[in-house]
C-alpha cells in the first residue's frame, strides 16, 4: 500500500540499524507517548533490533489506558437509563470500571453501540429521536477535533438528543508531568498523529526548557528507526531540538482549522489521568456555548461512588509513567490477559501490557 510499503523496506531497515549500532555508543532512554507507537514498536520487534544501550519506554499515550475509572463508572451509570444509547469507540467498552464494563452492561441489556466516528454517533441520534444518544469523547488531539465537528454539526442541524461525555485530553501537559515526576529519559518519540493537529511547535517547549530530544515520528519500522537515530544524534551532540521525522504528515504549524474547531467547542480544564493524577489544563470540556450537548451537564451524576475502585495489584498507573514494565506486574499474563483484562493497559491494542502480551510474552 502506498505510503506504507516503502517504509517497511528491509534494506532501509538494515541500513538504519547499522547506523544506530555504530553511533549509539552510550546509554539512552527514549519514551513514546503514542499508543500507535507502542503497538508498532512491539509488532515490528524494534527493541530486538536496537543495541542494548537503548531503552524504549511506553508513556501515557494510550487514551483508553489513561481514562480514569470514574469516567467508565459514569458511562455505566448513564447506560443504565432506558432512554439512553451509549456510543463509543470499540477499545473503550471492554475497560473495567469499579464493578462492571460497558461490554458487560451491554450483555445485561444496556444499549451500547460501537462506532467508528463521532459522526456515526450523530447519525444514530438522528435515526433515534426518542432516545438520548451519548458519545464517549475519548482521545487526544487526534479525536477531539472530530468530536467537536460532530457537536457543531448537531447544533447546525438542531439535533437535540446528541450528547458528549468528554474525557478528551491534550498531550503536551502530560509529557511535562512525566518529566517533572522524575522519570529519567533522554528524549521523546513524539506522537505522530497528535502532531498532525498540534504541529511540531507544540513540543518545542520540551526540547528548549528541559534539554530533551523531541522527534515526531511516523509509525512504520523505517520511521521509528530513523527517529531513534535522530534522537541518538541529538543526545550525542547535546543539541536538543524539536525535529520532524514524519514530515509527510506533520508540519511545524499543524492543522489550524482542526484546532479552531476544537477551540470553538471545548475549553481547557484540569483533568485526571490514570497513573498521573490531575494535570493542570490538560482536559477538554464542552464550553458554555455547547453546554446543551454536554452529557456531564445533562445527566447529573448523583449517587456515584466517590472513590472508584481499581484492582490493588494492577500496575497500570506505574506502567503509564514509565516506572514499571508490564512483566513487573504480578497479574500480567496470569489473572490479566487480553481476553479477561484487569487493567486498562491490557484492553487496548495500544496499551503497553496488551502489546507486550501479544508480541513479547517471553521477554
Amino acid at each position, binding site marked *: 500500500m502506498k505510503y506504507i510499503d516503502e517504509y517497511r523496506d528491509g534494506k*532501509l531497515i538494515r541500513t538504519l540499524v547499522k547506523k544506530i549500532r555504530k553511533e549509539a555508543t552510550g546509554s539512552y532512554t527514549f519514551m513514546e507517548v503514542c499508543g500507535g507507537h507502542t503497538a508498532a514498536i512491539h509488532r515490528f520487534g524494534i527493541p530486538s533490533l536496537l543495541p542494548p544501550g537503548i531503552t524504549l519506554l511506553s508513556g501515557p499515550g494510550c487514551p483508553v489506558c489513561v481514562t480514569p475509572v470514574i469516567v467508565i463508572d459514569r458511562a455505566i451509570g448513564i447506560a443504565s437509563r432506558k432512554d439512553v444509547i451509549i456510543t463509543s469507540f*470499540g*477499545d473503550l467498552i471492554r475497560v473495567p470500571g469499579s464493578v462492571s464494563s460497558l461490554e458487560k452492561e451491554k450483555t445485561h441489556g444496556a444499549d451500547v453501540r460501537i462506532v*467508528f466516528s463521532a459522526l456515526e454517533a450523530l447519525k444514530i441520534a438522528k435515526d433515534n429521536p426518542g432516545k438520548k444518544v451519548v458519545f464517549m469523547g475519548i482521545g487526544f488531539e487526534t479525536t477531539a477535533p472530530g468530536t467537536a465537528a460532530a457537536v457543531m454539526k448537531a447544533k447546525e442541524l438542531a439535533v437535540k438528543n446528541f450528547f458528549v461525555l468528554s474525557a478528551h485530553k491534550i498531550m503536551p501537559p502530560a509529557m511535562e508531568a512525566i518529566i517533572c515526576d522524575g522519570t529519567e529519559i533522554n528524549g521523546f518519540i513524539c506522537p505522530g*498523529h497528535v502532531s498532525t493537529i498540534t504541529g511540531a511547535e507544540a513540543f518545542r517547549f520540551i526540547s528548549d526548557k528541559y534539554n530533551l530530544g523531541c522527534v515526531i515520528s511516523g509509525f512504520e519500522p523505517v520511521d521509528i528507526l530513523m527517529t531513534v537515530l535522530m534522537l541518538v544524534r541529538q543526545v550525542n551532540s547535546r543539541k536538543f531540538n524539536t525535529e520532524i*521525522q514524519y*514530515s509527510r504528515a506533520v508540519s511545524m504549524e499543524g492543522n489550524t482549522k482542526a484546532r479552531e474547531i476544537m477551540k470553538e467547542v471545548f475549553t481547557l480544564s484540569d483533568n485526571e489521568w490514570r497513573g498521573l493524577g490531575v494535570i493542570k489544563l490538560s482536559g477538554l470540556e464542552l464550553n458554555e456555548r455547547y453546554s446543551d450537548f454536554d452529557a456531564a451537564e445533562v445527566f447529573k451524576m448523583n449517587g456515584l461512588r466517590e472513590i472508584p475502585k481499581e484492582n490493588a495489584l494492577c500496575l497500570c498507573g506505574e506502567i503509564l509513567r514509565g516506572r514499571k514494565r508490564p512483566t513487573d506486574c504480578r497479574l500480567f499474563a496470569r489473572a490479566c490477559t487480553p481476553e479477561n483484562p484487569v487493567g486498562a493497559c491490557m484492553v487496548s491494542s495500544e496499551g503497553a501490557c496488551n502489546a507486550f502480551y501479544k508480541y513479547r510474552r517471553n521477554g
Partner: protein
Amino acid sequence: MDSLQLHLDLNNDMCLSLPAKVIEINGDMASVSVGGAMFNAGLQLLDDVKPGDYVLLHAGFAIQKINKDEAEEILRLLEEMQDESD
C-alpha cells in the same frame, strides 16, 4: 491487507490512522480507499481536499493531507544514507 480485518482493526483501535486515497467527495464527506477497502471520511477538518489526494484517516475523519514531496524527500535521504554505508 485484508479488507474485513482492516475494518475490524479500525473499529477496535481508535488510534489507528492510515493513508487513504480520496475517491469521491459529497459535500463534507468523502469516500476513501485504504488499499482497496472503502471508508467514509468527514472532511470538516481540512480545506481543499480533492479526489486523488492522500489523507490520513483517523476515527472517521481526514485529519491531514499527506505531503507527497516530503514523503519522497525522506525516502531520498534514506537512500543516500544507504549508499554511504554500502
